[in-house]
């Protein structure tokens, strides 16, 4: 029977949660890399034993890890992320220009076909690629060199490239998202990029529908319909039916259209999951009730999923990389909270169970479906 491996990154180490296909009983291993911030771990779709992990602290900076045996052992790989050429400047919080400075790797996205190729989204926002299993990293500088680059400005969490989506049918096409610059697309394998933010409106900007400057929190797609994209923006749930050429709001009846993660059901491309959060500034669930909202209509009509989730006195957040789906049937949905709980729903969100409750604050959850 196939199974699921959850790769969980936290503020104080990584945890690996495994279960068989029933997803009833879970084994919890960890912490790995105890004491380090583990922003993201991810697995190669081409080789289930190949894992990559981003490890960092404010003291010692960035370290990268790779496993070739499904997480049993790890090897430290290359951690030099040098911007291509003269880095230049981007806009700082106060509107002045600020040099690009590498801080950390936020997100890792392995190639769909080659286990040795992996993309890294970093802060200050840039996209790097390794083609030697993480030994060395090269910037795809066409993104940061876009003419709007000097206008990009960090959000409260930093100027981070946090979302990387690879088109499953056209490897030349990729989507990335940056807080607070917006969404970008390449159609030539990362050589050149252009903003895809038409239709986004952000009240935080003096020009609300400008080309860049939007605080996109996350983008998700179903691989069977890769040109339909769903976006959780700082405010607004958005949808694009044309690979990002244009966006329209599908917030509908959500109690708050602010939030961080978004996921699409593995087999139902119109079934979307979000976790509404009260904002600005509080970043806790509305009414202190932790509710995942599911739309089965591709947006606009949302239902609250509460079975098994705390419905009182709940003040956790769910961060942008902390929700994931497996590809089993029925499809499973998972998320982790800043309170250290990791919840699983093996039935697409109808019922939730806490796999583990008291981990360090969860930064990321990645569901790997095992053969």
């Amino acid at each position, binding site marked *: 029977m196939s199974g699921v491996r959850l790769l969980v990154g936290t503020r104080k180490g990584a945890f690996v949660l495994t279960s068989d296909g029933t997803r009833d009983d879970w084994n919890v291993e960890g912490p790995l890399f105890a*004491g380090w911030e583990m922003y993201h771990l991810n697995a190669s779709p081409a080789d289930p034993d190949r894992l990559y992990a981003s490890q960092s602290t404010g*003291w*010692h*900076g960035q*370290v990268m890890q790779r496993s070739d045996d499904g997480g049993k052992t790890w090897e*430290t790989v290359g*951690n*030099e992320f*040098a911007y291509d050429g003269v880095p230049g400047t981007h806009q700082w919080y106060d509107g002045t220009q600020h040099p690009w400075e590498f801080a950390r790797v936020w997100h890792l996205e392995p190639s769909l076909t080659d286990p040795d190729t992996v993309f890294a989204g970093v802060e200050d926002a840039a996209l790097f690629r390794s083609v030697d299993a993480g030994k060395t990293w090269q910037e795809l500088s066409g993104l940061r060199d876009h003419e709007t680059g000097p206008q990009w400005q960090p959000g409260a969490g930093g100027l981070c490239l946090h979302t990387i989506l690879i088109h499953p049918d056209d490897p030349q096409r990729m989507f990335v998202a940056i807080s607070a610059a917006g969404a970008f697309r390449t159609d030539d394998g990362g050589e050149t990029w252009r903003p895809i933010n038409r239709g986004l409106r952000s009240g935080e900007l003096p020009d609300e529908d400008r080309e860049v400057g939007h605080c996109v929190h996350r983008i998700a797609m179903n691989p069977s319909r890769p040109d339909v994209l769903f976006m959780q923006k700082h405010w607004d749930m958005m949808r694009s039916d044309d690979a990002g050429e244009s966006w329209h709001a599908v917030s509908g009846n959500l109690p708050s259209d602010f939030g961080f993660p978004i996921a699409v059901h593995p087999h139902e491309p119109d079934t979307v999951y979000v976790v509404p959060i009260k904002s600005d500034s509080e970043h806790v669930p509305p009414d202190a009730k932790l509710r995942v909202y599911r739309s089965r209509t591709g947006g606009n009509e949302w239902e609250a999923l509460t079975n098994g989730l705390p419905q009182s006195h709940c003040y956790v957040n769910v961060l942008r990389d902390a929700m994931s789906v497996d590809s089993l049937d029925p499809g499973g949905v998972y998320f982790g909270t800043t309170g250290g709980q990791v919840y699983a729903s093996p039935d697409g969100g109808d019922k939730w169970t806490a796999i583990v409750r008291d981990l360090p604050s969860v930064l990321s959850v990645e569901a790997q479906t095992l053969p």
Partner: protein
Amino acid sequence: MLPYHLRTLAGVDGEISLDAQERPTQRTVLDALEATYPVLRGTIRDHGTAERRDFIRFFACRRDITLDPADDPLPEEVASGAEPLKVVAAMAGG
């Protein structure tokens, strides 16, 4: 002598002995350390500039030598191996 996280990363316990020339300096000791333990590259000094990371300091013979020039000779006690060069990570509360 390395802080906890770097000892873990390098897979070592206690103090490390390095061969860092006859008149070792901060720079030659760190060069030798990184050559012996490549996983430590970038964790004490920046990859590109070789500048010390902000929350790292260097102590020797009960003195903070962090801001001494990187090419100044280390104290004789460190060169002889009688005293360690301590790589210290800043304390963090909370």
